């Protein structure tokens, strides 16, 4: 069960506080199965990701089988069961970005950070995701780091861009 040692990075809640917030959220949604996706969204907002212990907690409080909860989590790519880094890099692979070398950008970032898509660096600084599309086709190839969009990215400039977030 939850211990009070870990703290949430973003808002400073202790793990116990995060679980009570989740319990309250489930209560607000009346623990209804039809609200499961909404509850999972809130859980991910509270914890940053959806580890097994959070899924078990939801399964217990909503009286749903664990396999059902994890089925929904694994169905939607928006849900993550892996912890997210401090910064999230999203590389656009929409048509415009793709034809202008988006996949080369993905390869270069993988090489620089030594992680695969969907993973987080060991120092928990970066998570890497791909998406299509971020609506900046005129700026292709584009990437976004957190809320900042970088336009016409040259793979050779990536090291410099990432250095700003070290």
């Amino acid at each position: 069960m939850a211990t009070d040692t870990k703290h949430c990075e973003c808002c400073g809640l202790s793990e116990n506080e995060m679980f009570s917030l989740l319990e309250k959220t489930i209560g607000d949604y009346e623990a209804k199965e039809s609200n499961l996706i909404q509850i999972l969204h809130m859980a991910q907002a509270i914890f940053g990701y959806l580890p097994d212990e959070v899924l078990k907690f939801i399964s217990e409080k909503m009286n749903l089988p664990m396999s059902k909860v994890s089925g929904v989590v694994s169905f939607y790519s928006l849900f993550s069961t892996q912890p997210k880094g401090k910064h999230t890099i999203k590389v656009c692979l929409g048509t415009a970005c793709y034809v202008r070398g988006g996949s080369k950008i993905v390869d270069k970032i993988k090489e620089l950070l030594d992680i695969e898509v969907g993973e987080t660096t060991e120092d928990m600084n970066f998570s890497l995701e791909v998406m299509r599309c971020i609506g900046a086709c005129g700026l292709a190839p584009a990437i976004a780091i957190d809320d900042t969009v970088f336009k016409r990215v040259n793979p050779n400039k990536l090291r410099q861009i990432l250095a700003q977030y070290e």
Partner: protein
Amino acid sequence: MVNLTINGKAVTVEKGTTILEAAKKLNIYIPTLCYLEEVHKIGSCRICVAEVEGAKTLQATCVTPVSEGMVVKTNTARVREARKIMYELVLSDHPKDCLSCGRNQNCELQKIGEIIQADESSFEGEKSKEFVDDSSPSVVRDSAKCILCRRCVTVCNEIQGVGILNTQERGFKASINAGSDILLGNAACTNCGQCTVVCPVNALHEKDSTQDVWAALADPSKTVVVQTAPAIRAALGEEFGYPAGTLVTGQMATALRDMGFDYVFDTNFTADLTIIEEGTEFLNRIVEMMYQKGVITAEKVKELGMHIGVNATFPMITSCSPGWIKYIEHYYAGQLDNVSSCKSPHMMLGALAKSYFANNIDVDPKDMYVVSIMPCTAKKYEITRPEMVNNGVKNVDAVLTTRELAKMIKEAGIEFAELEDGGFDNPLGISTGAADIFGTTGGVMEAALRTVYEIVTGRELPFEGLHVTPIVGLDRIKTAAITIEDAREEWSFLNGVTVNIAVTSGLVGAGILLEEIKKGESPYLFIEVMGCPGGCINGGGQPRPKEANTREKRMKALYREDEGKILRKSHENPDITKIYKDFLGKPLGHVSHELLHTTYTTRSKY
């Protein structure tokens, strides 16, 4: 009523009927794959599509209800082409190792392939990752074989209410499992095996024990003992082409002897024994309750041959079904005191074979190998429980399902239909009609009442043909009330007491009754629970039904077997009397306690 035509033939059916059901009335066959009558219809495989006049696209007939004036065509070129493409797409991600597959010649995908006349190599591409989960002692899951029909998801979630199997991931990566990388052997799975009955292919099947049994039969140093559960005799014939509900007790005994088993015993014997032990346990709980209430004195308890200070938790619940036991251990561990401490009948027989009988024939129990033929996959798990060991030897060494036994009989080259009737060996082979009905929902309760009522009142159970009609049948929860009047003198303190009983089969029903108990609202004194819907006749190890109403037919067969016997009450079994005299002493006595009773374990839900 609704009028429509299918392939030019007119038919009138009730509102709400599907096209598929209406076609059946006209003897028009529409191939189906994911659909399973009365269990599962989601229209996901699209094999059953047909043309409906006015509709733009082809309709899945298993889920499309009929409407007035509907014109349906099930065999046009467009339909046949679509069906073929759907089928070939399923095949494109299915291993083509049919000849070495456990379901060869008994596979629904193969069977409809014959009808669809598909071109095997139309679509070739990437295959789903092969992963065989054999971590469970009962059920094996082979993900490469899975065609994602989701029948198992429906039985596991909606019929059993357990929910271990669900769809994970999506698209090409989709697979059916417990989620979060949990293997079946570590999941809160009850091992009921209902998923293995409905799986159309070999993606879910029982863990094979036939090789272990062949090895034991070939080992000259082993005395190999076999026992058969009541439900086997009412279903085994189906594997040899007999109609559902055919009793094959005699042929089964002969086949087992021909296979080389040294002794052929009947689990029915220990079903009778269970009634004596469990019936006494129930009476002792009642006596303890009356003592605690001050209705009777300690001397009176002693006079009745009962004990003081025993567990008097009510309602008492039966313990014959190991899938049910694992369910309560995982999901309602707080209610474990309600469960009878009796081992299941085949575990009792194993324990007696390796003590009483081994001693009789002068065989070292270590050289005895006990095989149980069971309608059940959970029994494969049950024999691995650490409690099921006495004097350093396992009570039972291997469990074969009805399906596995049929395979072995065929492999042994035995022409089942040609066999003469044989009988069971003694002393663990005689049984009464009460034991036969252990295989069906309501049977254990009826058998117990036949004995307990007679002990208390000295009279036969007041029901026609000894059948407690309110608890016979396939309803989810059945109840009855019996009020004690004119009890024997020593039991006269029970006059006026009403015994409320409930019977359920399938774990959804068990969950409902346990919730009542948890809330302190249960009106019952005695509950029978069987893990599978309908009881052992429909167990996870039984033949996959080939005809409608298979459960009813098997159930009726067991009642027929019961009615055909002269002895129909467990306490009338002469060998039961003898075994108490020669070996066990008395019900709930020291030897019984050691060999025939057990304990339970609290388990996690995750």
